[in-house]
């Protein structure tokens, strides 16, 4: 299932990476990428790696892997709370609009109904609530996750949006490539690559 002609195939660790580069460009980070073909294998690998005390920089996958949050210790997002808040804003805005406009600003006789006809205000209130919730939450999500249109996108391994599961470990002064490589291979990585990307 591996496609040899795949453009994104990265170099094996054996090949001497341009070691001097990181001195030449301090503005870059270097990563060890464990490429996996299967989410379950990746999960196990993650546990193993963490067990050795190595910090996992990030895991990239073509679709959400369930349970990996706990493994990587990703905190539960507070977006739902934000959503609720936005909802409340929407509701109060709607009620304010309607009551102010039809009741206090210019009360008019409309079909003999009272100026403050609450039942008639329900639909708009609901719609505005939903609108604010949706937009507020999504915008928050995009901002906090730094998701915005960019002409140039840096990815660890292009196949990670296709069929590969990528486990990235940041190289620091004290990380030893061979150990990590061995560790990853032992845990089922189909390849282990080295990767250097410029800091954002």
């Amino acid at each position: 299932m591996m496609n040899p002609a795949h453009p994104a195939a990265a170099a094996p660790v054996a090949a001497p990476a341009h070691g001097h580069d990181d001195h030449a460009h301090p503005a870059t980070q270097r990563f060890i990428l464990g490429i996996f073909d299967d989410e379950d294998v990746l999960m196990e690998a993650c546990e193993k790696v963490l067990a050795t005390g190595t910090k996992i920089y990030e895991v990239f996958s073509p679709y959400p892997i369930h349970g990996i949050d706990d493994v990587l210790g990703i905190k539960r997002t507070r977006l739902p709370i934000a959503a609720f808040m936005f909802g409340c804003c929407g509701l109060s805005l709607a009620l304010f609009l309607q009551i102010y406009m039809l009741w206090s600003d210019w009360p008019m006789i409309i079909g003999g109904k009272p100026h403050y006809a609450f039942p008639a205000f329900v639909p708009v209130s609901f719609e505005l609530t939903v609108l604010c919730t949706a937009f507020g939450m999504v915008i928050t999500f995009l901002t906090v996750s730094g998701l915005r249109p960019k002409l140039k996108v840096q990815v660890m391994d292009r196949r990670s949006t296709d069929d590969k599961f990528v486990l990235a470990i940041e190289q620091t002064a004290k990380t030893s490539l061979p150990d990590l490589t061995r560790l990853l291979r032992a845990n089922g990585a189909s390849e282990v690559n080295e990767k250097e990307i410029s800091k954002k």
Partner: protein
Amino acid sequence: MSSHTSPLRTPLVTGGKTYHDVTHDIARHVENPPNLRWLAALTVSLLFVGIFMYSLYRTLWFGIGEWGLNKTVDWGWDITNFVWWVGIGHAGTLISAVLLLFRQKWRSSINRAAEAMTIFAVICAAMFPVIHMGRPWLAYWFLPFQNTFGSLWVNFNSPLLWDVFAISTYFSVSLVFWYLGLIPDFATIRDRAKGPIAKRAYALLSFNWTGSAKHWSRYEYVSLILAGISTPLVLSVHTIVSMDFATSVIPGWHTTIFPPYFVAGAIFSGFAMVLTLMIITRETFKLKDYITLEHIESMNIIITVTGSIVGVAYITEFFIAWYSQVPAEQYCFINRATGPYWWAYASMMTCNVVSPQLFWFRSLRRNVVFTFILSIFVNIGMWFERFVIIVTSLHRDYIPSSWVMYSPTWVEVGIFTGTMGIFMTAFLLFAKFFPVINMFEVKAILKSSSEPGVFPKRKPSDTAAPVRQAVSPPAGAGVNYDKEQ
């Protein structure tokens, strides 16, 4: 999504697909140049758009006197089409939101197209309330602005104003929901893209998505909450549309049964339209393995159920009319069935109530051609339902002296067929440049619900060495990866 599935369940994706095959099968259409059939279809749809433009010009330049409306029937094809399109627009969000909440995995391969359809249908629908106005250039007065003389605001008692809020909310939220789903797939296409333009275009579209675990976990919460709020939203939209009629005093309109009845009808017609489109897509883009008979059957079942609900609603209306003992009310419904517009009523009944019952036969349920024809029937029937409700209620209401007949002019017909052109054009463009099937969701369910044997569970020990050989790319490729962009 839960990874639990019953081993007894028939596979949702057939043909032993791997993750990469999924990507390839779906992204292929985006990457390859358009085929002739697609171009032909596009030309035809653009032709209809032309018709729309001309009819619209006649309407706007000379006034809606160009239509067949009169002093008694002030809404005709215009609002009929409006309600019809809105109804169609319901399936998309329903499939993605409600089925998501109900953990219906089979939705994965159809929700993308269904949502797209929703968006386009709502666009078509939203045009009618504007162009049916006497002075469309003042449409912005629907929004709560102060008027030029001071604080004259809008009337929040008017169902038409509720519509404005409902439709716009529904449209924008659906759009967001749909686009959010597209982001990871755009990323996939971006990473496969060859040409510089495609690279940059999809880079922009993909919102800098990398598929990191943190993003994925937030992403899932967001889609879940969106689904949560979209579900009542979907129901509210057609409820509010139905209130245009339910809150009035006209016999045949003034009916409390309308909200549920309209929503059922909306789902009914929406699913029919989804089927129509999905069957076409499935054939033209060879996606039989993703849109399987399984999908078609489940949708047919929903159509049968909603169709029957609508049928019950029709009968209830009659009962209530009789029970109310209000002469005008009673006459209204007798007139529907036996009056001058009996043919509209008859077509409605056969298409909406009788025909879906054929789906009780499994063979017909799983027959693609039959399903396709019937899905079109259903939409014809649903159009007639709206026509019956609007026109036959109005043309003979309270005061017999004002009773009239109504028939459309070619301008009205042109506008209606024109919106179909707009709808098809939009859908064709979508099918060509966007991934018609939600790749990441399909991949997510691939392992759990595709045919056994494709994914042999591997032990870490026998991590295939050959694989390593297989990958022997030019040295330094990985390192130079950044520089090549």
